[in-house]
């Protein structure tokens, strides 16, 4: 893949202990911006961007670092959002427990689908994940607890740990910030762990990794489950923000959107998915009145990205700076 070069640059940084200064600086600036953001823009919009940034980062863990293109990540994102919404509304769970329940559900779903999907490679892998995600979609459409076309509406926001009310958007914002920022740091840690290095080896040359004695399928399944779990964390959090779980989140177009975010931002980069998610969500926000044109524009971005811009935004910046980002 086109990202190979970017990632092989990342190797020395990973071997030395700790995070390179540049990355530390970027994370620090990012955190500062995110703390200031709810005072500058509408907090709900900012929370939406953060949820999708985590979703795209989780997806990128699988595609950019595991080399596996899943075309069904909506299943974990949307599935977790249904379970979290149900837990908060019907079982009366506190927000953090509801999010955890949704995330756990995504992990189980990821384990089941991943177990089957890793039996095929490349294009087949993409088709298998897409087909299973469609099955989850049909389930969400027909099952009792998901509310069919209506979804699960007016999910209560509840009290964090039973103590702090999340009714206020600003309070909720910092709850969401903690989850998504923590999730993204965790992904960073996974990528730069020994586990992440083995993943890289498998992606670059699978037969060789096998010959070195690695149980390749275990690593693939592990990264699949991690990615699904973190995508679920994003979806579960989103359901608490919008107090809603709907079919949109499990539809195949959502799976396509997260691919687009990752591709546009730069797959195989650390910060690319965050940039891609921000661009796409902002675009959808401003072009929402144009209806079907949003789909067309997304399609055009897809085509242009694939034909002319495979490194993505952050990939290009990374090449200019000659530093892995």
């Amino acid at each position, binding site marked *: *893949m*086109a990202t190979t070069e970017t990632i092989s640059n990342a190797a020395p940084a990973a071997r030395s202990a700790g995070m390179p200064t540049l990355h530390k600086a970027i994370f620090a600036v990012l955190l500062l911006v995110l703390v200031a953001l709810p005072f500058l823009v509408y907090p709900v919009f900012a929370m939406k961007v953060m949820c999708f940034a985590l979703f795209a980062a989780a997806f990128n863990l699988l595609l950019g670092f595991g080399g596996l*293109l899943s*075309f069904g990540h909506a299943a974990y994102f949307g599935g977790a959002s249904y379970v979290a919404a149900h837990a908060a509304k019907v079982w009366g769970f506190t927000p953090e427990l509801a999010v955890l329940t949704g995330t756990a559900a995504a992990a189980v779903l990821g384990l089941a689908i991943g177990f*089957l*999907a890793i*039996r*095929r*490679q*490349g*294009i*087949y892998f*993409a*088709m*298998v994940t*897409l*087909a*299973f995600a*469609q*099955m989850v979609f*049909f*389930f969400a459409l*027909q099952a009792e607890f998901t509310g069919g076309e209506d979804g699960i509406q007016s999910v209560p926001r509840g009290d964090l740990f039973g103590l702090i009310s999340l009714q206020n958007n600003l309070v909720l914002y910092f709850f969401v910030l903690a989850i998504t920022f923590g999730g993204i740091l965790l992904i960073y840690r996974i990528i730069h762990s020994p586990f992440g290095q083995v993943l890289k080896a498998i992606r670059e040359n699978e037969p060789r990794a096998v010959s070195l004695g690695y149980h390749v399928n275990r690593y693939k399944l592990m990264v699949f489950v991690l990615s699904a779990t973190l995508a679920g964390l994003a979806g579960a959090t989103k359901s608490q923000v919008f107090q809603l779980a709907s079919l949109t989140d499990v539809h*195949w177009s959502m799976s*396509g959107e997260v*691919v687009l975010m990752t*591709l546009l931002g730069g797959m195989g980069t650390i910060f690319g998915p965050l940039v891609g998610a921000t661009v796409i969500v902002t675009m959808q926000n401003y072009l929402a009145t144009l*209806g*079907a*044109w*949003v*789909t*067309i524009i*997304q*399609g*055009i*971005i*897809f*085509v242009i*990205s*694939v*034909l002319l811009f*495979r490194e993505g935004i952050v990939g290009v910046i990374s090449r200019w700076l000659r530093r892995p980002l």
Partner: protein
Amino acid sequence: MFELLGIPPQVMMGQLLLGLINGSFYAVLSLGLAVIFGLLNIINFSHGAQYMLGAFVAWMLLTYLGLGYWWALVLAPVIVGATGLALERVALSRLYHLDHLYGLLLTFGVALIIQGLFRNYYGISGQPYQIPGALAGGQNLGFMFLPNYRAWVVVASVVVCFGTWFMIEKTRLGAYLRAATENPVLVGAFGINVPRLIALTYMFGVGLAGFAGVLAAPIYSVNPNMGADLIIVVFAVVVIGGMGSIMGAILTGYGIGLVEGLTRVFYPEGSAVVIFVIMAIVLMIKPEGLFGRTA
């Protein structure tokens, strides 16, 4: 026998026929995907959009030019195929040296564009398309009523599927095609224009999708979303059958259609997911697909 199971034969045969109709579309569409995959090594995600395009071209030929169904059956696949040819020349051919997943992503983007454009101009309600006069009405078979058009769909799809199979497996052109699938460089060295062969193959595969669209136009309403969900089911069919063999794609298509029809008789709630369940079972027992070769 049917009475023993408590299912009236009319219901049973009706659902089997419906399954066979769906199977006809699965077969023609998965055949097109298999033909394209064989030579280009990409999965054509815009196949569903091109199927929809076939139905819309038929509708447009009738509405704007007054050309009826039989004209559409010939012209629409050619027109849709021509758009495919343009797509292959302008975009897809630039991606062959890259990871094959980029072809998937590109055609996904193209599908979004085509579907978005038609949704924009024609809405999502759908346009009606009349069954052609010669195929209106039906036959009373004694145990059930068989609409002529439905019988025609099955016959037409069988003819096209086996015609394609014959062309690829038994003719000289097909031999070039199969050789190019195995080793394009060597075939090029023998003086065959491989890039042209690839482009025409894509055009043919896309034309098959357009043909299926024309067949579908009088049965389903012609609407921009008609291909979007269907193509995901066809992907599952392709995973079940494996794309290694042309005959495998055809047989799996009809077979899955019938199984789906049977499920609708015995366990209606499961009919939407039965294909995916079969896919899961096949992945566990024979991951390369029923007719697949080990990759």
